């Protein structure tokens, strides 16, 4: 399957990765190569096969629905590139 430049641009947008226009043709070509490799999967008869959900069958454990942790705002914010007054700070989201 061949990926065109518009598709490459759309995928980059969805992934929230800035790709300059002049880099898009090479990116589209790389996608095409990788997807070409993946296309082999179409040879497999998967009729009636369940998609794998969990590699080892196990039941998820349950625990009491209670607070087990908290009260560490300083630690949560310690690695933030921009934290102010106890919050993560980001550029304006709403006009």
């Amino acid at each position, binding site marked *: 399957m061949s990926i065109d430049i518009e598709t490459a641009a759309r*995928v980059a947008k969805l992934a929230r990765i800035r790709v300059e226009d002049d880099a898009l043709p090479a990116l589209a070509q790389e996608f095409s190569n*990788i997807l070409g490799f993946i296309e082999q999967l179409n040879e497999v008869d998967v009729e009636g096969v369940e998609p794998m959900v969990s*590699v080892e069958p196990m039941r998820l454990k349950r625990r009491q629905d209670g607070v087990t942790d908290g009260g560490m705002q300083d630690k949560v914010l310690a690695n933030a590139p921009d934290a102010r007054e106890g919050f*993560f700070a*980001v550029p304006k989201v709403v006009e």
Partner: protein
Amino acid sequence: MMTDLTSLKISEARDALRKGEVTSVELTEACLKAIDAADALGAFVHKTPEVALGQAKSADDRIKTGDAPDLCGIPLGIKDLFCTKGVPSQAASAILDGFRPEYESTVTSQLFGAGAVMLGKLNMDEFAMGSSNETSTYGNAINPWRRGNDDTALTPGGSSGGSASAVAADLCLGATGTDTGGSIRQPAAFTGITGIKPTYGRCSRWGIVAFASSLDQAGPMTKDVRDAAIMLEAMCGHDPKDSTSADLAVPNFEAMLTGDIRGKTIGIPREYTMDGMPDEIETLWSEGRRMLQDAGATLRDISLPHTKYALPAYYVIAPAEASSNLARYDGVRYGHRAKLAQGDGITEMYEKTRAEGFGPEVQRRVMVGTYVLSAGFYDAYYNRARKVRTLIKKDFEDVFAQGVDAILTPATPSAAFELGKQHSDPVEMYLNDVFTVTVNLAGLPGISVPTGLDRQGLPLGLQLIGRPWEEGDLLNTAYALEQAAGFVAKPSQWW
């Protein structure tokens, strides 16, 4: 006082520590010295001598009181993928520049709880995506092995390249690795050491930077099988903080190393003979078969018919999970944030941050993952790959149900290759994992054991694949193979 402390195995150092022949501080200082002299290998990317010496002193006190677990006082290297409290942990990515976790991963916390000493953080491919350690933001890790007198720099493999290089060069007694498609076993094979990926769910993934959550497993990289058994036992165990960690008892793996494999059935999968495979790998594999047979095992030709679809399935599933896991790197909570231009909003912040912070291979995989999960393609790619994964697992279940105890294969399709040589085509690089990736897709334990050298003097390894949760039996088969192979070669020091 022993002369070459850093070349000790974990088991030897444990015994010497308990007898009082050496202290952990002496061992640790010897390793720190070796690390400082080995910057040319690019293995240790964050050195933690203060942490190490503090832990070593406590370990010496603990040994004196007689309360000393096996790993007490043993100096280890930790892959950069593990979050270590207060110590840089950035998955070899620029996007986690400056990140110092406020918490400790479960695996490292268990190791340190057992008294192990952390020498520092080890190089790796960025977010564990790579097979040559060339995608790291720190630069390449280098293989201590060379082709005879040729000084061409070779890859230690990846993604756990720094771990492999450090253990092979005797900079530490053992190291942690992680394995999503072969990232413990391939570098172990490239550097003449032992590496085991346990059954999915054996080790907690909590606090390990996530790449592909349904495939990632931690495991030890060590100088021999006994050390792998000792270190694996300390890393394993149920953790309520990882809902996929198995609530099963962890056996004493070392006690299971008898070397007796009489009556075991070893499967030899015909699909692992590949076109263009070097005859040296072919020979290594047939030698391995003979060794196991001589040790009393029965060989059986088996078929794992979906083997050839493992890599393409992996390159749908792993990028899909990665695109989701790596969505968290948005420049808000930790790590790098791009400088913004006047008028840039939050979308520009995300896009610029991720373009600057992620390297090319990570960007490629995140975008491939985004594509295969996008509306209209989810069924055609992602669901189809998950169905193929079910079939790959069934291949293994079928042969195990027919009485096969373990499966013997080559670990890699070649010896260590030259750095900078496999860049042009990402798909070519992906082929490195052709023998190892099936094991991750099926959730099985797999171990790489060095069994020989190629014509140029580079180490080669064989892989044994075991039944789920039977790491003890697998380690014992690996032990028998190790004893028969008698691999003792070491790289000669040039660094």
